């Protein structure tokens, strides 16, 4: 289980391949993953860039904790969270969650749990830069 905070762009598929290579081949049958990517539009405006603030120690603790919860709740061989912070450009991945399991229902449920918990409660705050200035993002309920 790994939860990682990154202040530089990451390639989610490369990260998934790396984790996959480290797992026992042939032991897990299912991997569900989710990648959230920065869009170049929001509320009708073009977004030029985004600054993602976080509460470092609490964020790490929170992400570690939801990984622990997922491992207790479902039979998983591994789970992974990677989340950006700092300056982010449109098209760059912001978050990756993934869960490996023997069964697809558990992999899907755990992967979904990780992103839903993270979205609902992990201490991150987005500030967008548009043509007319900077603004804090408010719609955390966005699905």
């Amino acid at each position, binding site marked *: 289980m790994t939860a990682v905070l990154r202040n530089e762009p990451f390639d989610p598929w490369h990260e998934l391949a790396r984790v996959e290579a480290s797992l026992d081949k042939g032991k897990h049958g299912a991997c569900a993953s989710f990648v*959230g990517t920065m869009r170049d539009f929001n509320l009708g405006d073009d977004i030029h860039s985004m600054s993602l603030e976080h*509460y470092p*120690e*609490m964020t790490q603790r929170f992400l570690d904790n939801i990984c622990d919860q997922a491992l207790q709740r479902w039979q998983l061989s591994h789970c992974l969270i990677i989340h950006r912070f700092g300056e982010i450009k449109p098209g760059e991945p912001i978050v990756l969650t993934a869960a490996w399991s023997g069964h697809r229902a558990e992999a899907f449920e755990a992967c979904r749990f990780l992103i839903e918990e*993270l*979205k609902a409660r992990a*201490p*991150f*705050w987005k500030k967008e830069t548009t043509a007319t200035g900077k603004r*804090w993002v408010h719609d955390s309920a966005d699905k």
Partner: protein
Amino acid sequence: MQLNVKFFASLSEQTGLKEVTIDAVKAATVMDVWNQATTNMPMPENTLCAINMAYARPDDSINDGDEIAFFPPVTGG
């Protein structure tokens, strides 16, 4: 008692505070810490609080050395 108090995102901009250490003589709850640190600025609706990096409520009590944090609704992911 000594408390480390942190403010994040829009709440940091609104209070003009980022990280302060306060000597909380009469502070018993998270709300007392807010009032002392911001000199009684009204707490914005939806403000979230944490004690030692775990979510807490404004009426939760605090202890010497605690790290208290205030922040707006989260928007990660």
